[in-house]
C-alpha cells in the first residue's frame, strides 16, 4: 500500500446492508478518494465482492469470524467479541495498520470498541457523536451528542460543547462557532436539572449563546447544538420522521389532480435535487469525538454512497489532525 495515503479500517459486516453495500462503498472510496481500506469481516464473504478478490489494489482483508449484532449490549459485545469485524477494525487502528475506522453497525458497540481499543482523550469522560445537520440554504449545524452517551452529567455536556466547537472549526469551516444548549425554552432557567446545572458550566465555553429549542435545528442561527445522547437521538429521529411526513405531503399534493401531475413533471426533479442535502447518505457519517483516534459512525442502513462519504470524513479527520486539535482544545479548557 502507498504509505502516503490514509488507510481507513471499515467494519464490512456492520449495518443492515452488509457486507454488499459496505464493500461496494469501500471499493468506490479507494477510487474516488485518496485512501486505502482495510476491510474486517468474514473473508469468504468479502473477497467475492471485490474485482480481484483479496488481491484488489488498495484493499486489505482482515479475517474476523464474529459479528456484533444490532441488539447486543454494547460494552459486553466490545469486550467479549474480540474476533468480531467491529473489534478488529478498532484493533487495526490501535496497531497502526489504519489511521481511522468506519462502522455502520451497532452504534453503542462501535463507540465501546473504539473507546476500549483506542482509548480516550485525557479530560474527556465520555465520547460523543458529532453529527452535521443540514440547513437548507445555509451551512450545516453540528449536533452533539447524537446518541453515544445517553446518561450525562453537566460536566460532560460542557466537554461535548468544547469538542463540538473545535470540530465545527474543522468540519464546518467556522472560525468562531456559536454554541447552544438544547432545551425546552430559550430562557436560562429553562430545562430539567441536567440542563439547569449545565448552563453555568457552558457559560464558560467560548461562543456559548444560551439555550436553543428543537425548532432551531435545521434553521441555522447557532453552529453547535449541545445535548445529551438520549435527547439528541430523539431529536434526530423526530426530524427524520417530520421530514418524511413533509415529503409525503408534498408528493401527495403533486399527485392530487391532473394539473398538479403536470406541474410535478417540472417540480419533482427540482425537489429531488434540492432534497439531496437532506439525504443521510450524503452527510458522510458522524464523528465520534473524545476517542484518542478517528472513528466515524455511519447510519445502520448505509448504502455504498454513505460508506464513501463516511470514509471521506474519516480520511479528512486524519489529514486535518482533528484528534490533536481536540486534545489541545480540551487542555485549554
Amino acid at each position, binding site marked *: 500500500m502507498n504509505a502516503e495515503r490514509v488507510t481507513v479500517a471499515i467494519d464490512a459486516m456492520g449495518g443492515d446492508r452488509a457486507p454488499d453495500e459496505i464493500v461496494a462503498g469501500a471499493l468506490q472510496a479507494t477510487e474516488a478518494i485518496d485512501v486505502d481500506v482495510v476491510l474486517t469481516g468474514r473473508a469468504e464473504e468479502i473477497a467475492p465482492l471485490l474485482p480481484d478478490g483479496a488481491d484488489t489494489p488498495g484493499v486489505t482483508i482482515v479475517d474476523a469470524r464474529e459479528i456484533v449484532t444490532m441488539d447486543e*449490549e*454494547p*460494552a*459486553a459485545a*466490545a*469486550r*467479549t467479541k474480540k474476533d468480531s469485524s467491529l473489534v478488529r477494525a478498532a484493533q487495526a487502528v490501535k496497531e497502526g495498520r489504519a489511521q481511522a475506522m468506519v462502522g455502520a453497525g451497532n452504534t453503542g458497540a462501535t463507540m*465501546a470498541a473504539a*473507546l*476500549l481499543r483506542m482509548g*480516550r482523550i485525557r*479530560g*474527556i*469522560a465520555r465520547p460523543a457523536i458529532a453529527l452535521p445537520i443540514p440547513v437548507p440554504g445555509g451551512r450545516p449545524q453540528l449536533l452533539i451528542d447524537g446518541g453515544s452517551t445517553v*446518561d450525562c*452529567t453537566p*460536566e460532560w455536556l460542557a466537554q461535548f460543547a468544547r469538542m463540538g466547537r473545535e470540530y465545527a472549526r474543522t468540519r464546518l469551516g467556522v472560525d468562531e462557532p456559536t454554541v447552544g444548549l438544547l432545551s425546552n425554552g430559550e430562557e436560562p432557567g429553562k430545562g430539567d436539572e441536567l440542563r439547569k446545572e449545565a448552563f453555568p458550566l457552558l457559560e464558560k465555553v467560548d461562543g456559548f449563546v444560551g439555550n436553543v429549542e428543537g425548532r432551531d435545528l435545521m434553521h441555522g442561527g447557532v453552529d453547535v447544538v449541545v445535548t445529551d445522547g438520549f435527547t439528541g437521538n430523539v431529536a434526530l429521529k423526530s426530524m427524520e420522521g417530520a421530514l418524511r411526513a413533509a415529503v409525503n405531503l408534498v408528493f401527495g399534493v403533486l399527485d392530487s389532480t391532473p394539473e398538479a401531475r403536470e406541474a410535478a413533471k417540472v417540480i419533482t426533479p427540482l425537489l429531488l435535487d434540492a432534497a439531496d442535502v437532506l439525504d443521510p447518505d450524503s452527510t458522510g457519517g458522524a464523528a465520534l469525538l473524545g476517542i484518542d483516534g478517528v472513528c466515524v459512525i455511519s447510519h445502520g442502513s448505509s448504502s455504498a454512497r454513505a460508506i464513501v462519504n463516511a470514509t471521506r470524513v474519516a480520511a479528512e479527520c486524519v489529514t486535518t489532525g482533528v484528534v490533536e486539535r481536540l486534545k489541545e482544545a480540551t487542555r485549554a479548557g
Partner: protein
Amino acid sequence: MPAETHVERSPLGPDEVLAIIRERLAEILEIDEDRVTLDSTFSEDLDADSLALIELVEALEDELGERTVGFSIDDDDLADLKTVRDAVDYVVARLASATG
C-alpha cells in the same frame, strides 16, 4: 526478610490493589482520586456505568496481567462487584489463584 528475587511473581496486597484501582478509576471517570474509597459504590457514588467498569477491567488486566501471568477477570463475576471493596477483594483473590 530475604531479598525478593522474583518481584514479578509477588502477589499484590489489598493496599496496592486499592491504589491501582483508585488511580485507574479516577482516570476513567475523570474524577479526583479522593472520591474513590473502599466503601464507594460504583453506580450510586461514582456514576460508573457498564462501559466504565469494562474500561476498568481491561485496564486492570493489562496492568496486572503483565506481572501475574494468567490473571484475568471473568465477565460473569462483574455483576457481583458493587463496591470498590468488592473489586479489591476480588482482584486480590484472582491474583492469588493465578500465582497459586
